[in-house]
């Protein structure tokens, strides 16, 4: 199994969820995070004062999939999250050694 960690623009979350559902991925966990990257150094203005806001709000999506579903899932996320503008985000894939569904105790791919 693989854990896909995608950091995307917040307003793309709904699109990503739909895209994943379409290819049969029905579970995921999301968090609000603050990202720093090339987009860094955007500024906000308050009372005529420019404030450098180094960290930009992003959403992090974690999805664990079977090995087979990983590629299509990454593909789906990448497409749904893309706006073409800087700060679109990254997708990382990690290996998962074990997965358990708490409610039933099922393990491995069955747990997803």
């Amino acid at each position, binding site marked *: 199994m693989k854990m896909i960690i995608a950091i995307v623009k917040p307003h793309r979350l709904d699109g990503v969820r739909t895209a994943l559902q379409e290819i049969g991925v029905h579970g995921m966990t999301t968090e609000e995070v603050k990202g720093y990257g090339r987009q860094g150094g955007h500024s*906000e*203005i*308050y*009372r*005529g*004062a420019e*404030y*450098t806001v180094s960290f930009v709000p992003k959403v992090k999506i974690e999805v664990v999939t079977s090995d087979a579903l990983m590629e299509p899932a990454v593909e789906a996320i990448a497409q749904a999250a893309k706006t073409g503008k800087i700060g679109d985000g990254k997708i990382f894939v990690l290996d998962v050694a074990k997965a358990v569904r708490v409610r039933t105790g099922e393990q491995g791919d069955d747990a997803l």
Partner: protein
Amino acid sequence: MTHIRRLASLGFTTAAAFGFGIGEARAADALSSGDTAWILTATALVLFMTLPGLALFYGGLVRARNVLSVLMHCFAVACVASIAWLVVVYSLAFDDGGAHQEWIGGLGKVFLDGVGTESLSGTIPETVFFMFQMTFAIITPALIVGAYPERIRFGAVVAFSLVWLVLVYAPACHWVWGGGWLADMGVLDFAGGIVVHVTAGVSALVLAIVLGPRRGFPHEIRPPHSPGMTVTGAAMLWVGWFGFNAGSALAADGNAGMAMTVTHISAAVASLVWAVTEYFRFGKPSVIGIVTGMVAGLAAITPAAGFVGPMGAVVIGIISGFVCQWFTTWIKFKIKIDDSLDVFAVHGVGGILGTLLVAVFAVPDFGGLGLAEGVTITDQLQVQVIGILSVAVWSGVITWVIAQIISRTIGLRVSEESEIEGLDIIAHGERGYDLT
């Protein structure tokens, strides 16, 4: 002898200049329950401006980890000022000073000595006058809180406010409203352009210089953590300002009504001017901007409220919305003083503008209620400039001295690590938000 009775004999202009409504000049010895009802209410409104109004206004503008410290500053300053007012400041400001009456009041009313339920001040009980004026003595040092958040020691806030009230507020208030030398000159300051906004604004600027800027100033400062909190506080300021300005008529009459009207108009106009200017400068009118414009408009109309008409209010609103905005940028980014929440740019500059413009717009030709007989605009302007300069210099110098002393004794500023960690947990052991 209450000061009001004394003043009544000085005739119209002077009385009005002391912040008593025009109607007040016909010295009345009987209690008016209507006037009393309004000033009791106005007192509640002005307290409401500081707590929670100003506290929320300022609290929303800082970083989340300092929000409680700002609320604490405003709250503690309010308590300290109340006690100082009872103990000595009221007496210094409004008791007859005898030989040195020009410069400072006497000590006859320390601890409200001799003031009972039957004592009158014009048509209202003296206790009500005492309470109403006390709310001004609360909000003035509380305004200065905006100069030093996110880095000051809590002890310094308490010590500074206490000493400042005695050394700066009491004399300034006495000079203008207590029958001192500026009152004698006929300075016009209906509800505190000089007494409140110039003193607070200049002191804020000086204190900000002595204290030094926040880490990362000017560009790496964190934006306001909760603009909604700031808007809530701003709205309370607006509502409360009705008590501030219309209450300064010290009666429920046509003067109060007009003061409320011009107050409101100046606020509305300055708000929109600020927002429109932002739209042209940055493409987006912000909610922080519009409410800052509101405060600027209110500060500017304060000295003028009982003297000008609606047209004067419109012009004062336009000018203050524009000029104060310019000053916020100028002070922070050109002369690089971290007067963090723009106390000088908004209150100081606003108060100065209104104190100057009242000389013009009090004239009937411009819709005003008239200057004193025989006084021309130029005469009045001269007096106003003297009032502003003398109070500004006094405020600045004394503030500088107090700040130096505190800095060398209990210390002004927290350590850098504390500044990063945030004052809430460091100074008060509390956290602003735990939403889990």
